[in-house]
């Protein structure tokens, strides 16, 4: 049971890491236009908001699908 719990946690970590790569790609494309000596405040805020709003979007879609199935 300990081993299984360990493997499940690693599995969950692998999924999270894979999501981080996907989100970095998506939000890099949306938020970064030119390459400077540091990220601007706007770019940093855009990256954080991009992750948060993408997750909101996913939740919105699932909730709306669920509500439609109850009609």
């Amino acid at each position: 049971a300990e081993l299984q719990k360990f493997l499940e946690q690693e599995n969950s970590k692998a999924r999270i890491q894979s999501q981080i790569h996907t989100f970095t790609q998506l939000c890099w494309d949306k938020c970064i236009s030119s390459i400077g000596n540091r990220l601007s405040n706007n770019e940093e805020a855009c990256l954080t908001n991009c992750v948060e709003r993408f997750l909101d979007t996913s939740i919105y879609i699932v909730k709306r699908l669920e509500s439609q199935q109850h009609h």
Partner: protein
Amino acid sequence: QVRAELALANAQELINKIGDNCFTKCITKPSTKLDSSEETCLAKCMDRYMDAWNIVSRAYVTRIQREVPNEMTGL
């Protein structure tokens, strides 16, 4: 049970695709919350993506049935 997993995988993939495509189309400048115009856009985009998915499915399945004998695909 194979069939249930298939249905689940299919629904999950559709949700992912809608998420990617509609986020790109509707949230052009991500801000501190989803505003109501973004939510309206997401709702429409979702419906249109599912319309497109249905049309594409119909066109593809019709074509397969025209070209391939039924017993091969089990449709």
